[in-house]
């Protein structure tokens, strides 16, 4: 009787599951997700630290998988073998009332301990390995300081001092040398954040009043996705960043370019700025974007980044000059630094070379004129609660607007920001 209802149940569930799954198949979903080869994969790794962590994970997987197979087979066997199959069976005399066997127990405990030892030894090794740059390579390690704020990252290069200004500072895109260990000091300006570039290394938290550090190394030059991994308030989900690893030569070139003050675009042709407000409009509450780099595209993300380093072709100097003026007038300078130009603020990311980044707003938006305009138009919709809105556009105490940007202003500002290569 149980059997009958049981099989009936199974049949029903089977059909049900099929019905449920069909929209999924129809939607043409990528059913290869189990390959786990996304931009933030912890499996498809690109550096020694992440590799040691993944290999340890594989060991834990193997050991537990073997145990699972054994235990599960015994469990399944017991369940089917000792099932009461008939009504009579179920009401038969109870089986012998045995109470256990100490030898079996001790054997199983010993087995479990043994399995754990197999996991424990590589674990200990990896703990010491991932803790700090290996002694032999210490001298070669490159030092960077990363400071998180709600909801963006500041990167400082203490070795690259700029006269009278302090260390080289960038935001949201960390450029590091490839093939060389990098030691990153992790700091935070407000709450707890966590620094995570899955392909290069597991995360380490950025905790107030605590001097954490992480080390990582990229095997090859590349473009890596990172994300804040500790819940840090409203926009935690969109607190992202990128790491760009360059070979020694490119890295040196990049450093010297970055140390330059902001670019000034000379006015070639005089003429009134042609303001055009023709950017796409966005729905309220529409976060994020769909970038063009999917695996298999013709341009790799790194190539894309490299192209971004060159000045745009059709720059409009008048518009840019107008933008530069607005940058001052609209008090952007209070929060942002554009070294060599007017800004001195440190509340927001350093924008000296913002045009040379591939993303803005902490890895959230692609750095295109469209997206820049969108950011300037609605910083709060793109990134709820961020300080550029609360504090920049509106005064959080009074709730009054500090200033407004017209579409013309935005066009000019976008032109200016895009020119900052």
């Amino acid at each position, binding site marked *: 009787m149980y059997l009958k209802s049981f099989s009936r149940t199974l049949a029903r569930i089977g059909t049900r599951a099929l019905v449920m799954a069909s929209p999924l198949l129809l939607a043409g979903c990528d059913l290869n997700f189990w390959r786990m080869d996304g931009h933030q994969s912890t499996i498809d790794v690109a550096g020694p630290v992440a590799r040691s962590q993944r290999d340890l994970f594989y060991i834990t997987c193997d050991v537990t998988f073997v145990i699972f197979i054994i235990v599960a087979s015994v469990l399944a066997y017991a369940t089917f073998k000792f099932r009461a199959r008939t009504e009579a069976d179920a009401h038969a005399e109870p089986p012998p009332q045995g109470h256990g066997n100490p030898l079996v127990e001790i054997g199983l405990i010993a087995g479990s301990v043994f399995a754990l030892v197999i996991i424990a030894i590589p674990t200990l090794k990896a703990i010491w390995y991932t803790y700090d740059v290996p002694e032999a390579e210490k001298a070669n390690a490159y030092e960077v300081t990363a400071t998180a704020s709600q909801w963006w990252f500041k990167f400082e290069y203490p070795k690259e001092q700029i006269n009278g200004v302090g260390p080289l500072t960038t935001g949201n895109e960390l450029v590091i040398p490839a093939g060389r260990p990098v030691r990153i*000091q992790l*700091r935070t300006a407000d709450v707890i954040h966590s620094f995570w570039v899955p392909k290069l290394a597991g995360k380490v938290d950025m905790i107030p*009043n*605590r*001097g*954490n*550090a992480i080390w990582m190394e990229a095997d090859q030059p590349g473009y890596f996705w990172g994300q804040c991994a500790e819940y840090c308030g409203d926009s935690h989900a969109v607190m992202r960043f990128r790491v760009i690893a360059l070979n020694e030569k490119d890295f040196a070139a990049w450093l010297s370019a970055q140390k330059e003050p902001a670019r000034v675009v000379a006015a070639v042709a005089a003429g009134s700025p042609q303001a055009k407000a023709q950017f796409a409009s966005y729905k309220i509450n529409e976060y994020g974007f769909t970038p063009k780099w999917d695996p298999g595209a013709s341009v790799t993300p790194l190539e894309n980044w490299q192209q971004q380093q060159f000045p745009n072709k059709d720059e409009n100097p008048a518009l840019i000059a107008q933008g530069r003026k607005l940058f001052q007038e609209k008090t952007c300078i209070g929060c942002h630094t554009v070294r060599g130009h007017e800004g001195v603020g440190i509340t927001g990311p350093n924008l000296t070379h913002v045009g040379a980044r591939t993303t803005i707003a902490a890895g959230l938006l692609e750095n295109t004129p469209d997206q820049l305009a969108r950011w300037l138009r609605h910083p709060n919709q793109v990134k709820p609660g961020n300080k550029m809105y609360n504090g920049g556009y509106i005064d959080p105490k009074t709730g009054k607007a500090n200033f407004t940007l017209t579409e013309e202003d935005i066009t000019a500002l976008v032109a200016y920001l895009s020119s900052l290569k």
Partner: protein
Amino acid sequence: MSSSAHASDAGPEHVDNKFEIFVQLAMLLAVITGVEIVMVYLPFMKWLIVGGLVTLSIVKFMFVIFYFMHLRWDKAFCTIMFFIGLVLATGTVWALLQIFSVGDSRPLTAPEPTPPPAAVAPAVAPAAH
């Protein structure tokens, strides 16, 4: 039941003695406290004094729980019960102090200089100066 027998032998004599035990114990505790207060000003090695203070406190502690709180006369189970909490609490406090005394836990605001923050710092003994 065995308890009746137990009751009579643990009964009256003990009860009468307790008054004196309690008074004497209180005197003893007062003296120990006095010794402790004097001890901190003695010019001995730090570890010796800390050790002495901790020992004396434990002695006081034990006297109070076993006499004033009757653990001595009660079923052993009460002692077990209390010690489960006491041991776990002591262990947890100890572990927390250990964790916080390694160099990695040094807060950034701590006064000692050592410029590279996460560098190895000497472990500091709890609350000892």
